[in-house]
């Protein structure tokens, strides 16, 4: 019975119900089946919520970044990325992941699917393939490039964000462990996260290099044929 809260979380999230409401309902139900009365539950919830304000500390950094965006933060980044347009698709995507990791590791969200992948990264990667191998590139390979473009954003975003000590995930780790009686300094968390960011980048670069190689062996001959026909 104690597990009803977890069941509510799983079902609620899986059914895409309102996240905030699901979490609060799960908490209250867990308290009820554990024979806490409603006043105790609300007090525990309120106490925990105030004690965990620290997980929201990242909000203090957001207005500054908003102000920098107004003064061209994203546009300048786009200008820098566009200079790299002569690279192969795989190298370009690894480069994007590197930029994504470096920036998110410093607490700046410079990326995202609607903002960067759709308008910039994916067209550039597709362009790199078409520029290299001509129009004969099959549609399923273009699809693959698109998928890799989206993945480049996710990999960079997920595995480097904990390097920034004010990241919501870092603060969640710290406050969860503190709630269990283990004091944590967020700086220690971000140090542990560092190797993860590097390993993720290396693995993703390998996967991108293999993609380049596959495209090379599949289309390089085609290109020779194309030239031979001319």
């Amino acid at each position, binding site marked *: 019975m*104690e*597990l009803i*809260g*977890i069941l509510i*979380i799983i079902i609620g*999230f*899986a059914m895409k119900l309102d*996240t*905030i409401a699901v*979490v*609060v309902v799960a*908490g209250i139900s867990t*308290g009820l089946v554990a024979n*806490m009365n409603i006043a105790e*539950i*609300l*007090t*525990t*919830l*309120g106490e*925990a919520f105030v004690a965990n304000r*620290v997980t*929201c500390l990242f909000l*203090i*950094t*957001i*207005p*500054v*970044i*908003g*102000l920098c*965006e*107004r*003064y*061209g933060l*994203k*546009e*300048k980044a786009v200008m820098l990325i566009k200079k790299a347009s002569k690279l192969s698709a795989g190298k370009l995507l690894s480069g994007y992941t590197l930029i994504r990791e470096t920036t998110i590791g410093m607490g700046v969200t410079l990326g995202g*699917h*609607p903002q960067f992948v759709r308008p910039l990264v994916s067209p550039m990667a597709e362009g790199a393939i078409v520029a290299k191998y001509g129009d004969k590139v099959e549609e399923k390979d273009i699809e*693959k490039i698109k*998928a890799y*473009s*989206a*993945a480049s954003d*996710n990999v960079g975003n997920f595995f480097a964000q904990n390097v920034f*000590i004010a990241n*919501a995930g870092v*603060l969640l*780790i710290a406050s*969860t462990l503190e*709630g*269990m009686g283990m004091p*944590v*300094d*967020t*700086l*220690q*968390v971000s140090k542990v996260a560092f190797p993860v960011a590097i390993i993720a980048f290396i*693995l993703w670069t390998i996967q991108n290099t293999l993609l380049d190689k596959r495209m090379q062996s599949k289309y390089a001959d085609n290109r020779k044929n194309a030239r031979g026909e001319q």
Partner: protein
Amino acid sequence: MDITQLSNLLLEIFYIMIGLFMGITMVFTLKDKQHKTRIGTALFWGILAVIFMAGNYIPSMIVGVLVVIIAILSATKQINIGTLKQLDETFTTLKAEKLGLKIFIPSLSIAIIAMLVAQFTPFSGTVAIGISAICALIIAFVITKAKPKELLEDTNRTYQSIGSFAILPQLLASLGVLFTSAGVGDKIASIISNVIPSGNALIGVITYCVGMALFTMIMGNAFAAFAVITVGIGAPFVFAVGGDPIICGTLALTAGYCGTLLTPMAANFNMLPAALLEMKDKNGVIKAQAPIALLLLAAHIVLMYFWGF
């Protein structure tokens, strides 16, 4: 005043600042006549502003009630983004060309100052974040020569775009506290211990990492999985047999992210781009991510076992 008292005082000041930012967002929402759920959204930001500014002075039960009100507002779809004044692209491009690389300095200084303060002063990482944010704010004003009014608008714009997600980590951490006081962790631990032997570090590590990935895949959210799995598996099967909580806990969260790469439940990351990029195979992104996700999960297990013990 010793360093702990000073740290707590500074943190309270930072919370008051965040509360003020939330208050600004509330005011903008109230003034937004076209907002369809104006009152509900303003109430959401207003309640949060009060909890952040005066959390320590309000009886905990009242805060609990306020959290329930937020949940009701969220469930009834009252918290929405209003009409935001979008950035003027000609202006941002002009400024990007004029300011050049200097525009990166404020964001870089948040990261660097926070790191330096945490490393070289007795202050903790959390206090360092607040100090660096305030420094970065001053630097940003010097570099951009922005008007204070612009900061207010940008605060409103950024806070509204984050919306109710802002409090999700805080709420999940609170859920973890409720779970612990209701004995949920012990229950999961006793169920798992029927299946796997306790006291074996390697089995504990594998269960913790794979459990995080699987729970994240089911729920589509690693934060929620973290609160549950760390209490239920991390503490009894990894920390209890000598695993370092910080190393193992930190690795566990990113082990969960390996699960995020593999699940259609994480729609924002895996399904939305497939749609945005007009891909035929809606699971194409997940397929591209499968090799790295599995390899990274294995890497997490190795790291946690050899580094965490």
